[in-house]
């Protein structure tokens, strides 16, 4: 099996350490940390326990605990926002709105999923809500964007740079589904449910995205 699409809906809990200065994901990095021989398992468990503790403290209104959670997860949330909306300033705003909404909804977090998964889903909904408010429904985006944005160039070496540029150049619907499915690991059913579209629409947008990307990236 190849590709993020095969990693399953909880795949976002894995984390590729892109930016050395970036903070790691929340629980998602625990497995990765555990595989690092230099860090003893007990220390890994302490990190996980600290984060569980931070979630519990945040749930009862501890702002410092919520800041701990923010520091540990903002790279994941901002990365998602930037890749999906392309505009760094808008990505910052959507990131902030995601955390503000998460704080307000924190009392409803029951721990059925990891906090990082729950937070990620909130961020996706914030982004999709922004698209909807801007009149950008996924099933109505077969053409070019009404408001083209200068593609964001990320500092990733090699072919990934070309792919980032190509993703940024996709129409909003195709880009959204590609990022959610092939980068973040959501299923078509999850995407359809979050975006309020048919599964077939999600599949069609993904196929379109992949075709466009291969065309752009082909030598």
């Amino acid at each position: 099996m190849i590709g993020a699409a095969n990693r399953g809906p909880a795949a976002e809990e894995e984390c590729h350490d892109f930016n050395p200065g970036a903070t790691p994901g929340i629980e998602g990095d625990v497995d990765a940390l555990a595989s690092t021989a230099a860090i003893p398992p007990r220390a890994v468990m302490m990190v996980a326990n600290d984060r569980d503790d931070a979630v519990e403290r945040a749930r009862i209104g501890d702002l410092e605990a919520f800041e701990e959670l923010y520091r540990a997860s903002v790279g994941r949330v901002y990365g998602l926002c930037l890749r999906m909306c392309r505009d760094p300033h808008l990505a910052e705003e959507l990131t902030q709105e995601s955390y503000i909404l998460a704080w307000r909804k924190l009392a409803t977090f029951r721990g059925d999923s990891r906090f990082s998964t729950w937070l990620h889903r909130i961020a996706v909904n914030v982004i999709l809500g922004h698209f909807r408010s801007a009149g950008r429904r996924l099933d109505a985006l077969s053409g070019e964007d009404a408001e083209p944005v200068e593609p964001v160039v990320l500092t990733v070496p090699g072919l990934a740079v070309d792919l980032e540029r190509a993703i940024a150049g996709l129409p909003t619907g195709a880009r959204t589904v590609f990022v959610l499915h092939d980068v973040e690991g959501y299923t078509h059913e999850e995407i359809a449910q979050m975006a309020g579209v048919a599964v077939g629409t999600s599949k069609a947008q993904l196929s379109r995205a992949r075709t466009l990307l291969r065309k752009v990236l082909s030598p």
Partner: protein
Amino acid sequence: MRCDEVRVLLDDYADGALAAGGAARVDDHLAGCPGCAAELEGLRRLLALAADLPREIAPSRDLWPTVAADIAGAPKVVHGWFSGSWRRGLAAAAAVVVAVGSLLIAYSLGRQHSGVRSALAPTASPLAVPASLGDPTFAVAEAELIDARDQLLAALDARRSSMSPDTQQVVDDSLQLIDEAIARISVALVDDPLNPKLANRLAGAYRTQIELLQRATALPAEI
């Protein structure tokens, strides 16, 4: 299966989403069709690249202060004038200032003689709008605006004994609203000191306050 039938199934095939029977038929076709096999290989290369993309990207600045300010109910510290929540908040504040200013004028006109109208007419701005906080003249211009405002505040205080309590309340409420707008813009400027729109807004808020004070101090005595 024909090539066109296989091609439409390749996405699901690569995703492992085809049923066993369908996948087996695609397998059979791929074994004897280099063209479709190459298509699948290209698709898999793309998916492998996508899977390896970094999933963390650090924002270029600390976004926490704005989040914390919103959560705590404090004035937001945001990046840039075009940040939506800030824009909405300040627009609302500006609307209130305008509304209260209009109320002040209407209230005063209703209580005073027609000669008051000239006193309430807008006055010329004492200073030009600076282009940016990064402009070295901005600090001087802001200091002059503050000085002009302080002089008018002193004049207003000297005239309070001739003003009715209602008028004083309306003036004070308006001044407070503008003070709050100035404070918010100042905070935003700390975060984005070179934003010319913020600088212009700050100068505009000072001018609005000065104009309000000029009108208030020019009102005929009520008591």
